[in-house]
């Protein structure tokens, strides 16, 4: 694929400029703090705060998950780069309302190191910080090594649920529990057909043959479990969902997905893959779960977790029990995901 014509200015300033734009997109609900953090304008005193973050370039996440009944703030890194510790610290100070801050972000070496240093800085200022890592990509490590898994589009339902829970959470311990449960119940698989490109270099993040797709590829183009021949929506969808189902089965920390379970399903585009394709795959996914007696409680479809103009799709499944369902059903509003009311809300 040739170098993309991107509508940007200085290629080295895209992260700063896009976060400026993001502030405008929120039109008064959030503000810029410190070097490059996005923080809600109204966080109630005593609220247990929720901080997300990570590299830029994956819009609408991560900073697009700040919002009503969602995260209180985000520490924004440069393109595909974890935010430096000072940005994490600045965001932490800004969201802290005296009852501690939960860090909830994708499990990448860079993010872990930088958030950890940020947490050390925050602890020096007597801010209570707890960290839960999002590690939903079943293709990035076996179930016995979940601590090595990458965080991909499963972060959307996880942050949605934890954001809702954080509104009334009595303390950091309780919120941490919800977050750990949401992470445990969330599993994702992605594929990619073609790469996105890095704005600063114009270069694609990986190469792949014209008739192949990368199964299990990560959202930065990290290799997955292997390349397979390009196939159809109806062949690929069950193949990917099987991997999710099998992962629930094989993992001793969690029950297998079974008849009668309720799930939230995310069908995500990695960038240039069209909503048309997502819908065609969703149609097949619905069949797949129907035939297993698994109930799709809610579904979100769209480009939520992207890698520039990369093509590809990922499925994420979160099993929701009554507690998680209650949090899922709350309304929320943000750049990344907005939900007016529950499934059977009062407006017709």
């Amino acid at each position, binding site marked *: 694929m040739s170098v993309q014509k991107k509508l940007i200015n200085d290629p080295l300033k895209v992260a700063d400029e896009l976060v400026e734009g993001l502030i405008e997109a929120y039109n008064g609900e959030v503000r810029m703090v410190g070097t490059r953090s996005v923080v809600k304008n109204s966080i109630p005193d005593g609220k247990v705060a929720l901080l997300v973050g990570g*590299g830029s370039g994956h819009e609408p996440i991560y900073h697009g998950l700040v919002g009503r009944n969602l995260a209180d703030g985000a520490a924004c890194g440069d393109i595909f780069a974890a935010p*430096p510790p000072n940005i994490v610290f600045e965001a932490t100070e800004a969201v802290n309302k005296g009852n501690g801050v939960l860090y909830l972000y994708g499990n990448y070496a*860079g993010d872990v*190191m*930088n958030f950890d240093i940020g947490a050390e800085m925050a602890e020096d200022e007597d801010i209570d910080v707890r960290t839960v890592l999002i590690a939903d990509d079943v293709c990035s490590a076996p179930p016995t090594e979940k601590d090595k898994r990458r965080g991909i589009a499963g972060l959307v339902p996880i942050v949605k649920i934890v954001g809702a829970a954080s509104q009334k959470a009595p303390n950091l311990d309780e919120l941490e529990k919800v977050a750990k449960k949401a992470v445990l119940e969330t599993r994702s698989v992605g594929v990619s057909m073609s790469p996105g490109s*890095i704005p600063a*270099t114009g270069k694609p993040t990986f190469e792949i043959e014209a008739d192949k797709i990368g199964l299990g590829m990560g959202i930065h183009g*990290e290799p997955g479990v292997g390349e397979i021949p390009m196939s159809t929506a109806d062949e690929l969808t069950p193949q990917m969902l099987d991997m999710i189902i099998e992962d629930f089965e094989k993992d001793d920390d969690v029950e297998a997905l079974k008849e009668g379970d309720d799930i939230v399903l995310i069908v995500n585009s990695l960038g240039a893959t069209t909503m048309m394709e997502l819908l065609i795959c969703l149609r097949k996914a619905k069949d797949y779960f129907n035939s297993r007696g698994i109930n799709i409680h809610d579904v979100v479809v769209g480009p939520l977790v992207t890698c520039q103009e990369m093509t590809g799709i990922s499925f994420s499944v979160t099993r929701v029990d009554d507690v998680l369902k209650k949090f899922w059903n709350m309304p929320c509003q943000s750049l990344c995901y907005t939900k007016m009311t529950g499934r059977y809300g009062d407006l017709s």
Partner: protein
Amino acid sequence: MPKESLNSAEVRDMMLAVADKIIEAEPILSEADRQLGDGDHGIGMERGMNAVKEKLTSEEPDDIGKVFMNTGMAMMSSMGGASGAIFGTVFRAGGKAIKGCEAFTAAEAATFFQAACEGVKERGGAKPGDKTMVDSLQPAAEKAAEVTDQPLPAAMAAIADAAEAGKEASKDMIATMGRAKTLGEKSVGKADAGACSVAIIVATMRDFVA
């Protein structure tokens, strides 16, 4: 003219030379990361080194250790990413260990590289053989400990050779850390991007004192 020891102004000039070399190598470093990771290593290092240049030219270099620590702080707070934390730690931990020293000689180099390597391993949890920059930094640190009695130019030459050899050896390793780990066997044959950076940094230090 070979330098037997460096004062703080010279250490600053050496780090400015390192910054220029890394900036020059941006395409090579990005390409190495594109083979195994997400292709941004050169960009990140360039961003960090630009911050280093700004920082080091804006202050009087009164202490050798602090010159290195400022280098680390500038990198850590401007780069982000794995390499911001890792390379920031190299210079912060290394610099801290020789804070207050009067001159940078082979002995200080040994203290610097060993503290840097320990700091990185503690921060990131990588072991030698994981195909990270540790595979270049650790041999460099080990060699530095062996050559403390040599003149600085000779010592740095030996350390640079070790870093380069470590980088080359990383080609044969299977990635187990970071973005490249799922490549598994496929990662064999390509050098780690961070190890390339270490090799360039140490080679530039060698050239500066030679």
